[in-house]
Each structure stands twice: as structure tokens, then as C-alpha cells.
């Protein structure tokens, strides 16, 4: 995919940091957060969670809307005459579904967030103990190459 020059940033609730990778990669790009109406009615979250999230959003340079997430992001991209959409990665299946809807209409770039530890090997996730044995030295910076 060719580089995006004038993208909009789609901010979702798994990355509400001012150091959001897309905000760092495209400083000043118009950014949007959308309250996912369908998710709100199925998850039934209480008001205090909404207040917490809203307070996070108020510290970010972001427009806030509500509705169908993909439709709102695409409409925002059109308004801004953007050449694509940039966002940050998430493991959630809903993120994958919304991303696919956006990507069907516009170029979408998904940036990784900094991982907990840098691990190249495939991890055995059957139980925590096995995973921890594989990452412990890296996580504690006691891996030989890390201690310079």
C-alpha cells in the first residue's frame, strides 16, 4: 500500500494515549473517536465507565461522535478529504470487523503499539507458566543482550 499523506486518525478505546502511534506518525491529522452504539447496548456498561473514557478523550486532540463506527469514520474521512485512515492495533474481534468494513472503502493503515516485551519466537499460550518462562528474562531486562 502506498504511503498515506493526508489521513484521518481513528482512535478507539484500546489506545487512549496522547502518545498514540498514529498521532505521533501524523501530527496534526484530524482524529475521531466514535461511541459504538451497538456495542454499548450489548455490553450495557454503566455511566462511570463512560465518564472515565470521556475524561481520557478530553485530553486528546479528537472529535467525538456516536453511531456506527465504520460509517462514522468513513464519513469523517470524506469530510476531511483524506486519502486514508490510520489507527492502532487491537486483539479484539470487533476491531477486526470494523477495520475490514473501513478497509473495504478506504486505505487503512494499522500501526502496532509498543509490545510489553520484544519476542520473536512463537509463544506457547496453553498456560501462563509456559508463556512466562519464555518471556521472563526479556521482561526483567536480564536477557544477556539487554544488559550492556
Amino acid at each position: 500500500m502506498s504511503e498515506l499523506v493526508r489521513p484521518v486518525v481513528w482512535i478507539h478505546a484500546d489506545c487512549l494515549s496522547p502518545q498514540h502511534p498514529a498521532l505521533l506518525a501524523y501530527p496534526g491529522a484530524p482524529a475521531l473517536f466514535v461511541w459504538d452504539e451497538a456495542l454499548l447496548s450489548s455490553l450495557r456498561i454503566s455511566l462511570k465507565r463512560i465518564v472515565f473514557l470521556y475524561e481520557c478523550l478530553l485530553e486528546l486532540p479528537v472529535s467525538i461522535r456516536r453511531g456506527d463506527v465504520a460509517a462514522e469514520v468513513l464519513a469523517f474521512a470524506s469530510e476531511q478529504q483524506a486519502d486514508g485512515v490510520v489507527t492502532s492495533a487491537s486483539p479484539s474481534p470487533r476491531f477486526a470487523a470494523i477495520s475490514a468494513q473501513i478497509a473495504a472503502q478506504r486505505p487503512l493503515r494499522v500501526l502496532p503499539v509498543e509490545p510489553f516485551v520484544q519476542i520473536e519466537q512463537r509463544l506457547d499460550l496453553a498456560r501462563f507458566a509456559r508463556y512466562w518462562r519464555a518471556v521472563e528474562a526479556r521482561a526483567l531486562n536480564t536477557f544477556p543482550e539487554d544488559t550492556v
Partner: protein
Amino acid sequence: MPKDMRRDFADRAELVAYLAAEFPAAAAESAAVSATRGGRRAAEALLTAIQPARYASTRNFLDGAVTRLSAYLRHGVLSLAEVRRAALRAETRPAEAAKLISELAWRDYWQRVYAVIGDGIWEDREPYKTGLEAAAYAQELPADIAAGTTGLACIDAFSRELVDSGYMHNHARMWLAAYVVHWRRVAWQAGARWFLTHLLDGDPASNNLSWQWVASTFSHKPYVFNRENLERYSGGIYCRACPLRLQCPFDKSYEALQAELFPGGAPAATPPRRRQ
């Protein structure tokens, strides 16, 4: 023309009133607002206060030096990598930060499992090891638990803390979840949905997979506790004034609880075994 939601508020009360009007269904679930504030500034203030070495020796106690960073981590206001680095910086030797970092690793682990199984986090990963079929567990959360009116001082206090503050200590979450699933025989999914409605850190992966760990559908044994364990790690604050202190359903040996709760099931996981 699309309408942006408001960003200008004189104070928190005005913000809360606006959101209660915009999201009436959320306010109907519970109109309580947490003392915990959202945003990076609040997160950084907590991050500079972490004490990894004290955390390691006190984290199981309700008044221990836990970080309260969970809601910020859940929503990516802070990254696990940032907190890991801060923990290493806060102590002279990595070993002193090891306990906190291994707890951060639980979050990373659940997220990785989530990336693989997706909505499968709502299904039993494995059968219950309690000697009971999944069908033996009720599908709905009993009203007295949600309302905090069971009469058990500890359980009612945890329930109210969940609804009023959106935060609970890890040990209290384990006790409450064990009570719901094992003492009341309610399917973990009902408890998990209740937690996600209220926890500021409510995370489908960490929450559901922790419930499954307690239930034994993602662990070798069910997790249970007894009064001695709860009294010790809570400093006795609930038991002292509990109206049911002489009829406490937790005031038993682990052998007796095993026989009562899991007739014919596997031996339960009790505190000497490593807890999550």
C-alpha cells in the same frame, strides 16, 4: 451535517450531567461516578508513585501497595511497556521489580490468548473440574448479590465497591467470583457480564479468562478460599461486624469446603498453590 459531541465543560459535574443525558441506558445501569479520573495526567501521577518492592511483599493484602493502574492500562492510556520500564527504574535490582512485572505479564498473556480465540473467551475453554456439569450452574446473577444484600459483610462490601467505584482489589475479585460460581452455583459468564458493566478496567480478556480460572474452565482446579484466608488478607475488617459471623459459609477447613462444594470433583485450588 454530523454533530460532534461536546468537549467544553466547566467542571466534572457538568460533564457527568451531559453524559447521563446522552447515555440514559448507562445511567440506568448505575448513575454512580468513580472518584478515579480518566486521562493521562491522572495515570502519570499514579505511575510515579509505584513501589515495586513493597508491592511484592504486600500485594495480596487489601491495603497493600497495589498500583491501581488497571483502567489506564486497559484503555491504553499507559502501555505495559511504559509501566514495565518504570518498575525497573524504581528499584535498583530487577529482582525487586519482578513480582509487579510478572503481574503485568498476566495482562499481556490474556491479550495474546484473546488474539487467538477471539469471542471464544465467552465459552468454557474446558469442562468445569468441580464434579458438576455446566448445566448445573444458573444463567442469571442472583439479585441479592447484585444489590449487595446477601447479609455477608464481605460479599456485600465487594459488590458495593464494584458498583460505586468501578475498582476492586485482585483478591476481592477472586473471593467474590468464587462465591458467585462455587457457593451460589452461578455460571461464570453471568458474573463476568456484571463485572464488565461496572469495572473501569473491564476487559473482555482479563476479566473473562480470570473468571474461567476461578471457575476451573481454564485451570486444573476450581479456586476457593475460607474465612481464615479472607480474614487475614482483609485485616478482619468485614468479619468483625458481620451479622452472619456465627453462620459464616466460609468458616470451614478446605477439606470440609471441598466435600460441601464439589462432591465428587477434583481437589480445589487453595491458597498455598500459586494464585494469579
